[in-house]
């Protein structure tokens, strides 16, 4: 039974690069902690080549020229993790959320659908790349071997059954410990004293002697190194929350750069919805505004209270066109500008089933819902929102016995 593992190395960095892909070619370091004790949490490959390692202080790395520094963004990491889950669930219904940067999925029964295992692995990597994440994908006969291979080898790796020990042998023992705890540090120190550097060295140790010295933990680690562990996946059923967040380094004042960022967020949202075969009928935009420090009470944590500007876009039919969404948001923001610089953008989509429209030969002409929605938004910008729409008569004898309401067009196919 084959399993696949998707691992995103330097996950905090990749989460930030989803919103700023132009930084991928530059050395980038993600900082964590409060000033002035900030330390490097993660770096990308370019920064690593420049000599920047996780754990260094900000003072130590400031001397490096061309290095881009960013603060850690938990909302963006959550959005990246959700995107990773969407990517995995677009292939298999049985997905285990092993860690924020590691997803394991069961590939049983998928070969007739998606092709041979190497093709599935490449498709997984490509889908993750489409969602803005550079991931390593590994396929193996058990989940733990797949996870080790994904963490140890970059790119796409396929481990055939029976060759786990041989292929994992070249990996360093550090790959067995995904979280640095006191116990793992002690075990690593022990392995270092014994001269155990690679997994093949650990796999070659005698079982009894290892269990006498390190107990069941050591035996388990040896089984991992040999690739002979067997366990069942713990599938996850995540909530269908489609939300993208971006924290800005400096406040945005103009609507044009805001539209550029919104376009990027909408593309990612639509890609995630499409991977789940869903569409959306409601978009919620929340902009955190910069108050500029005037008349704002400071919170005990030191962060200034921010105003939020919210707009909700309700569509008459489920849609999945990022360009249409962007145009509608632009028209809406033009008619209702935020009024203050923007420091954070939250964009959420309410998932619904996509509409299934079957057109008939003899039906009367109908406008396309996407075009009609854009047209109505543009007309509202010309004459005003209350001057365009459909009528509803009121039960009154007053002269103005009617009210304008939103023009909602239902196709003939939706009626039947």
């Amino acid at each position: 039974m084959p399993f696949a593992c998707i691992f995103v190395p330097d996950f905090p960095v990749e989460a930030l690069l989803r919103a700023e892909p132009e930084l991928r070619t530059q050395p980038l370091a993600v900082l964590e902690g409060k000033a002035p004790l900030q330390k490097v949490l993660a770096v990308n490959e370019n920064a690593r080549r420049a000599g920047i390692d996780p754990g260094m202080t900000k003072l130590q790395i400031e001397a490096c020229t061309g290095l881009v520094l960013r603060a850690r963004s938990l909302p963006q990491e959550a959005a990246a993790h959700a995107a990773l889950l969407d990517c995995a669930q677009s292939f298999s219904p049985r997905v285990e959320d092993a860690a924020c940067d590691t997803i394991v999925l069961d590939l049983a029964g998928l070969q007739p659908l998606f092709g041979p295992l190497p093709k599935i692995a490449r498709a997984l990597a490509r889908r993750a790349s489409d969602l803005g994440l550079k991931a390593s994908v590994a396929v193996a006969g058990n989940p733990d071997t797949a996870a080790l291979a994904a963490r140890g080898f970059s790119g796409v790796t396929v481990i055939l059954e029976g060759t786990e020990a041989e292929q994992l042998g070249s990996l360093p023992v550090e790959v067995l410990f995904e979280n640095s705890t006191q116990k793992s540090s002690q075990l690593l120190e022990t392995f270092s004293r014994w001269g155990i550097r690679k997994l093949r060295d650990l796999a070659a140790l005698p079982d009894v002697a290892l269990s006498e010295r390190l107990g069941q933990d050591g035996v388990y680690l040896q089984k991992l190194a040999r690739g002979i562990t067997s366990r069942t996946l713990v599938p996850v059923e995540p909530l269908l929350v489609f939300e993208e967040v971006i924290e800005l380094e400096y406040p945005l004042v103009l609507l044009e750069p805001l539209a550029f960022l919104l376009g990027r967020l909408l593309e990612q949202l639509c890609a995630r919805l499409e991977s789940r075969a869903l569409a959306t009928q409601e978009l919620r935009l929340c902009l955190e505004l910069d108050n500029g420090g005037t008349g704002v009470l400071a919170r005990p944590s030191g962060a200034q209270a921010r105003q939020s500007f919210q707009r909700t876009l309700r569509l008459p039919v489920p849609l999945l066109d990022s360009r249409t969404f962007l145009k509608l948001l632009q028209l809406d923001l033009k008619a209702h500008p935020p009024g203050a610089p923007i420091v954070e953008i939250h964009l959420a989509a309410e998932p619904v089933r996509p509409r299934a429209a079957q057109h008939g030969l003899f039906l009367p002409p109908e406008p396309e819902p996407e075009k009609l929605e854009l047209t109505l938004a543009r007309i509202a910008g010309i004459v005003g929102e209350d001057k365009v729409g459909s009528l509803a008569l009121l039960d009154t004898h007053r002269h103005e016995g009617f009210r304008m309401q939103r023009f909602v067009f239902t196709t003939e196919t939706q009626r039947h």
Partner: protein
Amino acid sequence: MSSLPLVSSAAPGRFIPVAASARSMLVLERLSAIPKLAGVAPAARLYVRPAPQMVSSGVREIDALTGGFPRGCLTEICGPASSGRTSVLLAALGAATRRREVCALVDISDAFNPHSAAAAGVNFEKMLWVRCGTRLQKSGSPQRHRDTEKKNEKIEKPVEQALRVIDLLLQSGGFGLVIIDLGDTPVKMARRVPLASWFRFQRAVEHTATVLFVISQVPCAQTCASLLLKVSGKKLSAVSSQLSAKTPAHAQRLHGLQIQGELLRSRLERKPAGSVTSAFVTKV
């Protein structure tokens, strides 16, 4: 051309009377023999535009007079106030919504009466109403001239809005009927709409299933209108004593309004249409 004798290629210099179809063939042969005219397509082979599909206007007499309103063409109805043009507008809307088509009304003067439309059977779920300007204020003050200028200033902007809105609606497509109501717009303002705009609107609906319908006091679209109908109210008959008790009091005065429609132009037939009139009567 019909008077020129044709010479058979078999016997040059001799006049041989031949049948019409064979005559056409001879012409084609002579034309194709001329090198300079080798690429010229004869008129007989030119593309003949099919006649547009006609839809009911909602008024039986107008359908009998014109055949209905053509799809993909601009139809214009002009007439002074109380000539029945709004009745025709409401009838057309009612007929289109009964056909389950989506309609759009660009109301430049904001003069549309929803209650009259409901009485005419218009389905509001299928009608998009765009209100471009405020209602004209009828003033009897001594400063009439200044008020007229102010009125013109008030609705000048709505006309510009209307042109942009019409462009958007026609580009969006999918509407069965798009109505431009210039009925209460002063003639001076309505005539300021450039001919290029009308031409653009006419080209936008060409080859589509949309009926573009213009209501005005005087003809505005000029040559862009494929169908031009002039309406005028003839007379009001006396209040009939046979009206039912349910009839609202204000409606009784308009019972028996006779409307005369005159077809001024129709490009839908090969031969130019003469001035044909038809009369119909409104009823409560």
